[in-house]
């Protein structure tokens, strides 16, 4: 049985390991797509070379690397009002572990409203429409519907456009302008030209996520790759804000003490107990000293 199982392997086009002489379970050399990670890349490549190489089978051009780095900056901190960062901070103020805080940020930041799933949908629109305005009109006016039920809630808004506000915010326009200036592909510059037309079609401003979807498409990432990178690249801010709130503590963090209103409060139901019970006395009676 054991010998039979030993034939099972993990196939990989990414990663090779050469074992040390003393243990087959310890790696001496690791190669990413043929490049020696610790003996060569460590000294000669950048983090963004390495990140790009994890997704593609070739090293990036200077402009691709610049765009990837700019995307990483744009995404790194969604800010403490963002639901995913709030999830991480909620964990931290209650004393939860760091991994739990990041898991919370990932889970909350995965959704169809501003999360990884919306990014995937936005990229699927780019795949479907490219830079053909008529195709965009068709897909935005009559969004593709999945007839089968799924675990994901149904999106209510066009992916890549914000349901809030009436104008595209300055930071989104700045991001789009800078990304497009790097001239990596045709999607960002086309979006720059057609932004207002697309916004008026859906009656909503372009969001940062919409710009990122176009940028990932210029980098020739598939939607699934884009979703993964989006989830990953938004975590640094969640981590930093969680650590900051851990220091301030739960007493300094919003709780909305008077913010919740019950629409069906049954009121005090202790009269349902047959004999009136003084609950404080019950607690006192059973105190163990």
């Amino acid at each position, binding site marked *: 049985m054991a010998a039979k199982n030993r034939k099972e*392997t993990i196939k*990989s086009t990414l990663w090779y390991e050469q*074992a040390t002489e003393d243990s*087959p379970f310890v790696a001496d050399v690791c190669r990413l797509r043929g490049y020696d990670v610790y003996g060569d*890349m460590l000294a000669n490549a950048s983090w963004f070379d390495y990140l790009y190489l994890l997704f593609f089978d070739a090293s990036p051009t*200077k402009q691709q690397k610049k765009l990837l780095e700019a995307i990483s900056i744009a995404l790194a901190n969604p800010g403490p009002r963002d639901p995913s960062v709030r999830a991480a901070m909620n964990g931290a103020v209650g004393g939860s572990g760091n991994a739990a805080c990041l898991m919370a940020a990932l889970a909350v930041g995965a959704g169809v409203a501003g999360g990884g799933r919306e990014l995937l949908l936005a990229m699927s629109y780019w795949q479907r429409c490219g830079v053909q305005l008529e195709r965009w009109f068709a897909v935005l006016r009559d969004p593709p519907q999945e*007839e089968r*039920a799924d675990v994901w809630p149904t999106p209510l808004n066009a992916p890549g456009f914000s349901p809030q506000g009436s104008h595209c915010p300055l930071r989104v326009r700045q991001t789009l302008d800078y990304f497009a200036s790097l001239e990596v592909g045709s999607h960002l510059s086309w979006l720059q030209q057609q932004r207002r037309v697309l916004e008026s079609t859906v009656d909503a401003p372009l969001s940062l996520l919409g710009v990122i979807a176009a940028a990932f498409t210029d980098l020739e990432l598939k939607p699934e790759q884009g979703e993964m990178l989006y989830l990953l690249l938004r975590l640094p801010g969640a981590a930093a804000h969680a650590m900051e709130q851990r220091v301030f503590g739960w007493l300094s963090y919003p709780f909305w003490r008077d913010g919740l209103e019950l*629409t069906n409060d049954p009121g005090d139901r202790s009269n349902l107990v047959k004999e009136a019970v003084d609950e404080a006395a019950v607690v006192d009676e059973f105190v163990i000293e």
Partner: protein
Amino acid sequence: MANSPLLEEFEDRLLTSMGAWFQGERVVFRGKDLFHELNENSWMSILLFGITGREFSENQLAFFERIWTLCASYPEPRIWNNRVAALAGTARTTASLAIGAATAISEATIYGRRPDIRAIDFLFRAKDVKDRNESLAQFIRAEYQKHGVIAGYGRPISEKDERLAPIIRMAKQFGCYNGDYVKLAYEIERTIVALQGGPKMNIAGLGSALIADQGLSAEEFYRFMVLSFSAGMFPCYIDALEKPEGSFFPLRCSRIKYLGKPPRKWQETPV
């Protein structure tokens, strides 16, 4: 274009009928006092009340719980979600992180939550087809053409589903085996077999039919099943935790079958 009036309306104000904690006094759970009206309820009844807002009979609650017992409690660490719990144990992380991650992983496509919701959804759509007096066979054929698979029929790794017989015995015992959706699930199976020789119904197919007969919607069934695998995860975590660290099916370097580019020297792309 819209501004943000909706968010302004919600700022510092949450109206809800789901519940609240009155500090030091009481807890309201969907309009009922937890300590005085729900204090003798089972956890399963609270779970289903929380999900649906409806109350179920004792017989139904016991039936729902037994579905969890029989369908979802495999302490088998090779199954992908349980393997996450076992890896958590072997890497010495916490039980909460292990079960949280393994539960998230259970939202899979070849098993777990996606087949659950798709199976019950398929049943509901098939019921609509029948109600409109349209051809079930044509509907099934179209589903295969479009998606290549019908949730609730067929199974990865093993063709036979060992859960069917125990579930059927149990459903009969609870008087829950003769509902319309169970009958429809078998009619679908017969139609698939007649059309193309198989595959046969799996536990998601039968389970979703049994649950549909109890009046749950597709979303309610999905949410009800979210925690169902957890009983099988703990033993996998504990077992790995109690064994030497890193010893859960360890992989030697040579077990990575490298299929990529040959060794090469790093060079930046010149342009």
